[in-house]
C-alpha cells in the first residue's frame, strides 16, 4: 500500500530525512565530535605528559644516547664485532650501508636506519590505543553518553569522530617524532656518511603508507572493545590483549619492509594489504556502537 507522507511540523522537508536514512553522514557533526575529544585530550595533562615522555624516550633519548656512545668510543672491539655481524643483514640492506666507512659509522648508520624504525610503529600505536580504549566507555562512565545518545548525531558520526580523535594524536606524535629523529641522526651520523642521509625512501613509505592502516586497524578493534566493556580499566586491559599482537605484527612487518627489500615494493605490498584489512574493519566497526551502549544499558538487554 502506498500513501502520501505529510510532515507534521518543523523546518525541514522529508526529502532531507530520507536522504539521511539512506546513509549520508553529517561531516560537520563528525568533526565536532573529533574536535571536542581532541580538546579534552589537550586539557588532560595527566595523559599527554606521559605520552610525550614515551615519544621523547624512544625518538630522542635512546637514539641520541646510543649513537653518541658509539661515535665517541670509536672502533673498539665490541663495535667491531657488531660491525661484523652486519653481514647477517639481507643483501639489499648491506648494500645500503656505506662500504668505506669506519666500523663505528657503519653500526651507527644501521642503528639509525634499521633498528629504530619499528619505534615509529610502536609509539603511535601505544598512544592511539590508549586514547581509543577510553573514548566510548569513558562517555558512559562520565554520564556524557546520555547526552550523545539523546543528541541528533548518528552513531556512525560519533564513531568516526572518535576514531579520528584517537588516530590523530598517535599520527601527529609519529610525524613530529620522525622529524626530530631525522634531525638528530643526521646531525650525529650524517657528517661521517657524507651528509644528509635520512629519511630513506623506505622510511617515507613506512610513515605515510604502512603505518596509517595499522593504526586504523588497531583503533577499529579498540573502539569495538571500548563500546562493549563496562569500564575504562577493562577497556585498557582488553585493548592491550588485542593490540599487542598487532604491534608485534606491525613491528615485524615494518622491520621486514625496511630490511627485506632494497626496493619499496615490499612496503607498498604490506601497506596495501593493511589498508584493505583496515578499511573492512573500519566499515564494520561502527556497528559496535549503539545508543544503548552509550547509555550503558546494552549489556542488560
Amino acid at each position: 500500500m502506498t500513501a502520501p507522507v505529510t510532515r507534521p511540523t518543523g523546518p525541514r522537508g522529508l526529502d532531507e530525512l530520507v536522504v539521511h536514512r539512506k546513509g549520508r553522514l553529517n561531516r560537520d557533526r563528525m568533526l565536532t565530535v573529533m574536535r571536542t575529544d581532541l580538546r579534552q585530550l589537550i586539557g588532560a595533562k595527566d595523559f599527554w605528559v606521559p605520552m610525550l615522555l614515551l615519544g621523547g624516550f624512544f625518538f630522542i633519548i635512546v637514539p641520541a644516547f646510543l649513537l653518541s656512545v658509539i661515535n665517541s668510543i670509536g672502533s673498539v672491539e665490541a663495535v667491531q664485532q657488531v660491525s661484523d655481524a652486519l653481514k647477517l643483514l639481507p643483501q639489499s640492506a648491506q648494500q645500503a650501508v656505506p662500504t668505506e666507512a669506519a666500523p663505528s659509522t657503519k653500526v651507527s648508520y644501521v642503528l639509525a636506519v634499521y633498528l629504530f624504525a619499528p619505534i615509529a610503529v610502536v609509539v603511535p600505536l601505544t598512544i592511539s590505543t590508549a586514547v581509543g580504549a577510553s573514548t566510548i566507555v569513558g562517555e558512559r562512565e562520565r554520564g556524557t553518553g546520555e547526552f550523545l545518545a539523546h543528541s541528533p548525531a548518528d552513531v556512525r558520526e560519533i564513531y568516526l569522530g572518535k576514531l579520528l580523535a584517537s588516530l590523530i594524536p598517535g599520527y601527529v606524535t609519529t610525524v613530529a617524532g620522525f622529524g626530530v629523529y631525522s634531525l638528530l641522526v643526521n646531525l650525529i651520523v650524517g657528517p661521517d656518511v657524507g651528509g644528509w642521509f635520512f629519511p630513506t625512501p623506505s622510511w617515507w613509505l613506512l610513515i605515510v603508507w604502512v603505518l596509517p592502516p595499522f593504526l586504523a586497524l588497531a583503533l577499529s578493534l579498540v573502539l569495538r572493545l571500548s563500546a562493549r566493556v563496562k569500564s575504562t580499566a577493562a577497556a585498557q586491559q582488553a585493548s592491550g590483549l588485542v593490540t599487542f599482537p598487532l604491534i608485534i605484527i606491525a613491528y615485524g612487518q615494518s622491520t621486514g619492509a625496511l630490511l627485506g627489500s632494497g626496493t619499496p615494493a615490499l612496503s607498498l605490498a604490506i601497506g596495501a594489504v593493511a589498508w584493505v584489512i583496515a578499511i573492512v574493519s573500519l566499515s564494520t566497526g561502527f556497528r559496535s556502537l549503539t545508543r544503548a551502549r552509550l547509555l550503558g544499558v546494552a549489556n542488560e538487554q
Partner: protein
Amino acid sequence: MSVGVTTVEGAGTRPGAGVVGHPPPAPATGPLGRAADGTELVVELRNVSRRFGPVPALSDLTLLVPKGRITVLLGPNGAGKTTAIRVITGALDPDRGHVRTFGYDPDVFGEEVRRRCGVVSAKPALYDRLTGWENLQYAAELYGLGRHAVGPIREAAARFGILEALDQQVGGYSTGMKTRLALARSVLHDPELLLFDEPTSGLDPESSHAVLELIRDMTDDGHTVVMCTHLLIEAEGLADQVVVLEAGTDLLAGSQEELLRRYWPANLVFFDAEDPATLDTLAGREGVLGYERGDRVRVQLDDLGRLPDLVAALVGEGVRLTRVEPHQPTLEELYFAVRAERRAQGVEAPL
C-alpha cells in the same frame, strides 16, 4: 512532495529499522494525535514495554503528553521514568508498543525527533575538562547551530544565570552550577519538547526552587515539558498533568485536581468536637452531601461557602468544636493513597 510508503502493520513494528544503506523504512509520520480534550499530543506512548535482561523497566506503559503543558512523571526510583524519556527520544528502542514523538516513530526518524528535544538527564552529563562555554558550543554544533552560535549560547546561559562562569572548567562547578549549565544546554537550540529527568537532584532547596521556576517559565512560551521526579513537592503546583508510575506502569494520569478528586470528594471538611456525637446533627442539614463519623468526622458539602453558616449554627446549638478543617489533599496524600490501594490489591511492586 509525496513519497510512496508501506503502511506499518501493528504497533511497535519497525521494518528495516537500523539497517544502514537500505531504503528508508515505512515512515510512521502523520498528524499529531489528540488528547480527549482535543489538545495535540507531542508524545504518544501506548502499551510500551522494555526489559533489561529479566528486569522489566517498562510494562505496558501508556503516556500521552499534551502540547504546551508540563507533564510530571511521578514515581519511586526504578519506576521507569528515565527509560520512558529514553524511549521518547529514540535513544532506546522499546521491545513492543507504539511510540510517536511529534508524530514520528523515533526509531525511524530519530534525528528529526532528537533535534527537536532538549534533555537534562539525572546526572548533568557535562564534560568536566571543558569550560562551560565549550560544553554549550559542543551542543550547539551537534544540534546544527554552527560553530559560531555566540548569541544562542549567551542567551541560554544568561537565562539560567550561568553566563559569568562560562569561561571556567566545568570540573570546578558546584552541583547547582552544573544543573544550570545542563538546563542551558537543553534549551540552546530552542527545542519544542523539554525532557527533564530529576533536574533538581542534588540541589539545595533554594536552587531547586529557582530551577522549578525556570521550568515553569518555559511553558509560558509554548514549550512542552516532561519532568521526572520522585519528590512529590516538586510536582505540586507545577504539573498540568501528573502521571504516577510504578514498576514501569502508569497507575494514574490526569491533572492534579482530577486525580485528587478520584480519591477524595470535593468540598470535604473534617470536623471534631469535645463530644463527637454532637456533630451527628450535621447529617441532615441543607448542603451536606455526606456524613461519616470515624476517628474524625468527614463531611462533604455541596459548596464550601456554607461552612461559616454551619459553624455558626453548631456553636449556637452549644456544640463545642475543636476542629474545622476543609480538606486540601496533596499529591503526597494521593501518592500514598494509590500505593495503599495497590497494596490492598496485592499488586504493589517492591521499591
